C-alpha cells in the first residue's frame, strides 16, 4: 500500500519565509508522489503547529510526516514527540532543514527556494523508506565520576554526595583545590581564598559518599549513557594512604629541595612533599625525579623517620575500573604562557611577573610570606598591570578570558595596600559585569590606581630619558588621549588569560566529546544546555568549557550535579535505536567488518559462520555498513535505501 505523507513547511516567522518562497515549496511537495497533504504554517514548533500535524495524522490517516523547518538538532525531538502522540511511530518522521542550511545562508530567494525544494524532496523520498523502530530502555547506574578537583569539581562532588549518591572524584595532582588554592584574595569581596575553599576541601576528604582518587587520571572511558566504565590510572605516591597520618615528619627530614610548582617555582619544596599545608588528602607524595633513593639509590630518610611505616618505595602504578552512570568533567584550564609574548620580556626581563606569581607573593603562606618584592629584595614603588595577555589577541587567543579585568583590579588593590606603590592598569576595556564588580571597579578607581586605556605594546629596559634608567618602561598608546605613553615602573604584572589545558585533546578523545574553535570543551547548546555535551550522560563544568571566574564555576559545578542527579533519578534512559544489524541470510562470513568496529560490537558466530552486532555496544556510526561488500549490514534509520532515495531525489532536483 502506498504511503500517505504529510509535508509541513514552516515559515519560522520570517526566518525562513524571508528567503524561501514557502508557497512554492508547498506546491512542489504537493505534487510529489504519495504526498497526501502539504501545508505551510508560521511556526510549526508551536502548539497549534504541532496540532496541525496530529490532526492530519488522525483525520487523513497519514503514515509518514515531513517537517521542513529548522535543524533537527533544534526541534527533531519536538516533532518526534508530536507524531508519537498522534499514534505514529516517531521514526516515521523526517525533518528537512531549510533554515540553518538554506534560508539563513542565502540572500538569493530564487536559489534558496530551489534548494529548499531539493531538501524537502529528499526528505519526502527518504521518509517513504523509513521504518518504525522501538526505543530501548536501560537502567542508569547511580554512581558519578567527576574529573578534576578544583572548586568546580568540589562543588559538584559535594552536591551529589549530599544527595546520597556515590561520587568518584579523580584529581591529577596530589591534592584537590586547583587554582583557587593558590590565590590570595578573591574579587570582589576580598575574602581570602583559603578561608572559603579549605572547609569545602575538608568536606570532600571526609564525605562518606566521596571516594577521592588523587594523583590519578582517567585513561579510558567506554560504554553508553547510564552504563559507563572508567579506567583510572593511580600513580604511585610511594606513601600508603591508609597508613599515613599526615604528620609531615618525612617532609621535614627530606634532604632534597626543589622549586615548588605550587609556588610557580618561587619557593622550594622537598622531594617528598604536600603542595601546601592544607592539602586534601593530607598525604605526601614522593617526587621520583628528585628523590635521592630513586635517583641515586641511597637515603630513605623519610622511611626511617616515618612513625607509621607508611613509606613504600615498592609501590606500583595501578589501574582500576569504575562503573558509573554519568560523568562530570571539571578539568579546568591552563594559564597562558607569558613567555610566548616576547615583547613583554617575561623570562628575559627581571621583575616582569605573571599574575599567578603575584598571587603567590601576596599569599601569607607564599614564598615571601605575603611580601611583594623585587628581585633585589626591595619593595616596588611603582607597578604596572598589563591586561589581556594572551587574550583578545589574534596572535594568540581571540576570546576574552573574563576574569583578568577583575583579578587585575584585585592585584592593584593588594599591591597598593601592601607596598603603597603607584599602580597603573593598562587595559583595552574594563569588563566588570558581575554582581558587585562594577562597584569594585569604582573602589579601585578611588584608590588612585591609574587606568590607562591601551594595550601595552611592549615592556623595554632600553631607556630614552634619564628617568627611565634602571626601570621597566611600559610603552602603550593611550587611546583616550591619543598619544603614545612610556611609563617607567619597577614591576610589571602580566594578567595572563586562560587556555584550554594541554591535555584537552586527549581528554576529549577519551570521553568522545567535541571541542569548540577556541579549544575548550563544547557544550550542547551555548544558552540552553551549557553543561551538557553532545554525548548523553557526560557533562562539563567550570573553566574546561571556557574561561570562568569562581562564582560562575561554582554555579556550573552545581548545575552539572543537578543534571547528573536528574538523569540518575530518571532511573532509566532510552537508547537511540539507530544501530547496525546484520542480515544472517546475506552474511557470507567474509569478516571484512570485524576489525572496523571501534567498540568491538561485532563478533563472529563460529557455528553459523556469520558476523553479529551487539546492540548495546553499537554506537551507530555506520562504518561497518559502508564496508560490507555483501550489503548484509544495515543501519537502522540510515539504510542504504533511505540514503539512496535522498541522493536520487537531490540529483533529480538539480535537473
Amino acid at each position, binding site marked *: 500500500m502506498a504511503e500517505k505523507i504529510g509535508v509541513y513547511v514552516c515559515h519560522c516567522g520570517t526566518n525562513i519565509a524571508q528567503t524561501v518562497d514557502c508557497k512554492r515549496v508547498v506546491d512542489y511537495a504537493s505534487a510529489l508522489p504519495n504526498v497526501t497533504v502539504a501545508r505551510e504554517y508560521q511556526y510549526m514548533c508551536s502548539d497549534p503547529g504541532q496540532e496541525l500535524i496530529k490532526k492530519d495524522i488522525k483525520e487523513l490517516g497519514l503514515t509518514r510526516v515531513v517537517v521542513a523547518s529548522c535543524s533537527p538538532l533544534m526541534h527533531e525531538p519536538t516533532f518526534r514527540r508530536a507524531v508519537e502522540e498522534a499514534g505514529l511511530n516517531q521514526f516515521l518522521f523526517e525533518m528537512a532543514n531549510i533554515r540553518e542550511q538554506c534560508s539563513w545562508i542565502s540572500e538569493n530567494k530564487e536559489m534558496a527556494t530551489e534548494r529548499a525544494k531539493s531538501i524537502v524532496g529528499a526528505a519526502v523520498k527518504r521518509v517513504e523508506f523509513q521504518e518504525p523502530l522501538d526505543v530501548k530502555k536501560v537502567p542508569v547506574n547511580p554512581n558519578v565520576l567527576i574529573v578534576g578537583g578544583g572548586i568546580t569539581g568540589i562543588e559538584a562532588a559535594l552536591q551529589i554526595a549530599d544527595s546520597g549518591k556515590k561520587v568518584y572524584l579523580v584529581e591529577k595532582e596530589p591534592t584537590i583545590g586547583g587554582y583557587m588554592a593558590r590565590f590570595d584574595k578573591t574579587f570582589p569581596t576580598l575574602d581570602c581564598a583559603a578561608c572559603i575553599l579549605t572547609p569545602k576541601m575538608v568536606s570532600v576528604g571526609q564525605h562518606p559518599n566521596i571516594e577521592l582518587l588523587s594523583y590519578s587520571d582517567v585513561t579510558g572511558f567506554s560504554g553508553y549513557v547510564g552504563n559507563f566504565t572508567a579506567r583510572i590510572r593511580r600513580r604511585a605516591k610511594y606513601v600508603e594512604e591508609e597508613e599515613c597520618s599526615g604528620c609531615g615528619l618525612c617532609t621535614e627530614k627530606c634532604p632534597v629541595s626543589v622549586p615548588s610548582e605550587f609556588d610557580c617555582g618561587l619557593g622550594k619544596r622537598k622531594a617528598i612533599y604536600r603542595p601546601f599545608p592544607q592539602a586534601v588528602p593530607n598525604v605526601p607524595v614522593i617526587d621520583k625525579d628528585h628523590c635521592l633513593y630513586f635517583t641515586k639509590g641511597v637515603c630513605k630518610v623519610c622511611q626511617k623517620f616515618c612513625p607509621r611505616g607508611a613509606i613504600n618505595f615498592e609501590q606500583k602504578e595501578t589501574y582500576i575500573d569504575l562503573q558509573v552512570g554519568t560523568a562530570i568533567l571539571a578539568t579546568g584550564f591552563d594559564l597562558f604562557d607569558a613567555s610566548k*609574548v*616576547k*615583547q613583554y620580556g617575561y623570562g628575559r626581563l627581571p621583575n616582569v611577573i605573571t599574575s599567578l606569581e603575584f598571587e603567590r607573593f601576596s599569599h601569607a603562606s607564599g614564598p615571601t610570606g605575603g611580601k611583594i618584592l623585587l628581585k633585589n629584595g626591595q619593595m616596588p614603588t611603582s607597578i604596572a598591570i598589563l591586561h589581556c595577555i594572551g587574550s583578545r589577541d589574534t*596572535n594568540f587567543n581571540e576570546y576574552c578570558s573574563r576574569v583578568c579585568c577583575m583579578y587585575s583590579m584585585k592585584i592593584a588593590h593588594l599591591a597598593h595596600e601592601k607596598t603603597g606603590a603607584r599602580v597603573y592598569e593598562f587595559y583595552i576595556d574594563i569588563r566588570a559585569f558581575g554582581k558587585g564588580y562594577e562597584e569594585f571597579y569604582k573602589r579601585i578607581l578611588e584608590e588612585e590606581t591609574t587606568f590607562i586605556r591601551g594595550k601595552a605594546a*611592549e615592556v*623595554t*629596559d*632600553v631607556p*630614552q630619558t634619564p628617568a627611565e634608567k634602571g626601570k621597566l618602561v611600559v610603552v602603550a598608546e593611550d587611546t583616550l588621549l591619543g598619544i603614545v605613553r612610556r611609563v617607567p615602573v619597577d614591576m610589571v604584572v602580566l594578567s595572563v588569560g586562560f587556555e584550554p589545558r594541554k591535555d584537552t585533546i586527549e581528554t576529549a578523545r577519551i570521553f568522545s566529546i567535541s571541542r569548540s574553535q577556541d579549544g575548550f570543551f563544547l557544550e550542547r547548546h551555548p544558552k540552553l544546555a551549557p553543561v551538557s555535551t553532545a554525548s548523553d550522560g557526560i557533562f562539563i563544568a567550570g573553566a574546561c568549557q571556557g574561561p570562568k571566574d569562581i562564582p560562575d564555576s561554582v554555579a556550573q559545578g552545581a548545575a552539572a550535579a543537578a543534571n547528573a542527579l536528574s538523569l540518575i533519578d530518571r532511573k532509566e534512559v532510552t537508547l537511540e535505536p539507530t544501530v547496525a544489524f546484520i542480515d544472517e541470510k546475506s552474511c557470507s562470513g567474509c569478516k571484512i567488518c570485524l576489525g572496523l568496529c571501534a567498540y568491538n560490537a561485532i563478533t563472529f558466530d563460529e557455528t553459523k559462520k556469520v558476523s553479529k552486532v551487539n546492540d548495546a555496544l553499537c554506537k551507530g556510526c555506520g562504518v561497518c555498513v559502508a564496508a560490507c561488500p555483501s550489503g548484509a549490514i544495515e543501519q537502522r534509520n540510515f539504510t542504504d535505501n533511505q540514503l539512496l532515495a535522498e541522493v536520487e531525489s537531490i540529483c533529480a532536483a538539480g535537473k
Partner: protein
Amino acid sequence: MGSRLEFSYYPGCSLEGMNKAYDKSARVVSKELGIDLTELNDWNCCGASAYMSIQELRAHLLSARNLALAEKEKKDLAVVCPACLTTLTKSNRYMGEDPKLRRTIASALKAANLQYLGTVKVRHLLEVIVRDIGEQEVKARVSRPLSDLKVAPYYGCQFTRPFGDFDDKEFPVMLDTLLKWLGAEPVNFPLKAKCCGGMLMTTNEPVGLGLVRSLLDCAAQNGAECVATICPLCHITLEAYQGNVNKRFATSYKLPTLYFTQLMGLAFGFNRKELGINEELISSKHILAKHVEAV
C-alpha cells in the same frame, strides 16, 4: 615544488642598486651552501613600498606575476628583502583565501598568458639557511670563525611581521642563532625588530633620525662592534644616516653595518671583494682586522 634547495631567486629592486653587495654576498654564500639560486627570469617590481596601500589590487597583480613566473619554473621563491617577502607572501595568502581576488588576478594573468595555481612558497634566505641547511652544514663551512665579534642582530620591522610564522614575530632569534654558528657573539639587542626610520627619512627626517639614533645607542651600549642586517632599507638607513645623526645629536657613531650574508661569507673564508665588503660607507676594516684574521 622541486627540491628544497633549488629556488627561483628574486633579488628585488634595491639589490640591483644601492644594495649590490647584499646580492653579491647572498649568491656567494648560497652557492657555498649548495642552495641553487637561479634568478627568476623577467621578474618585476614586487609591489611593495607605497604601492600596496594606494593601489592594492595592482600591487597584488605585480606580486602574482612574479609568483606565476616562479610556478612556471616549478620552484619556490627565495628572497632576501623582507619587504619583497611580505608583499609576495601577502598576495600568495590572499589569493589562497579569497576566491574573488584569485579570479580577478587569474583573468589579468591570462592576458599575459600566465596562470598561477598557488603552489609557490615564498621564503627568506635567512630562514632557508637556518631551517633547511641547519647548524651542522653551516658550521662545517666555517673556516674562519668570527671569534667573539660582538654583533647587534638587527631584523627590522618586516622580517616576521605580519606573516612570519617561522620565528617569533616581535622578538625573532633566527639571526642570533646563525651568528652564533659563525662564532660571533650576538649582543642583547632589545630593539632588534624596531623601525629603522627608513620610510620617514624623506617625509619627517627628525623623527627618522631619532629612531636611528636609538638603535645606535642601544647597539653601542650593549657593546656591539657592528650591526648585522637582513633588510636593504634598514641597512642603508643605519649606515648612510649615521653622519646626520652625529650632526643632529652631537654623537660620534661610526658603527659598521654588514649584511648577514657578508658575515657568513667572511666566516666561510671568502675575501672582502667577493662579498662587496669594500663598498660600505662606514669601514669595517678595523673590527674585521681585530676578529677575522687576514681578511
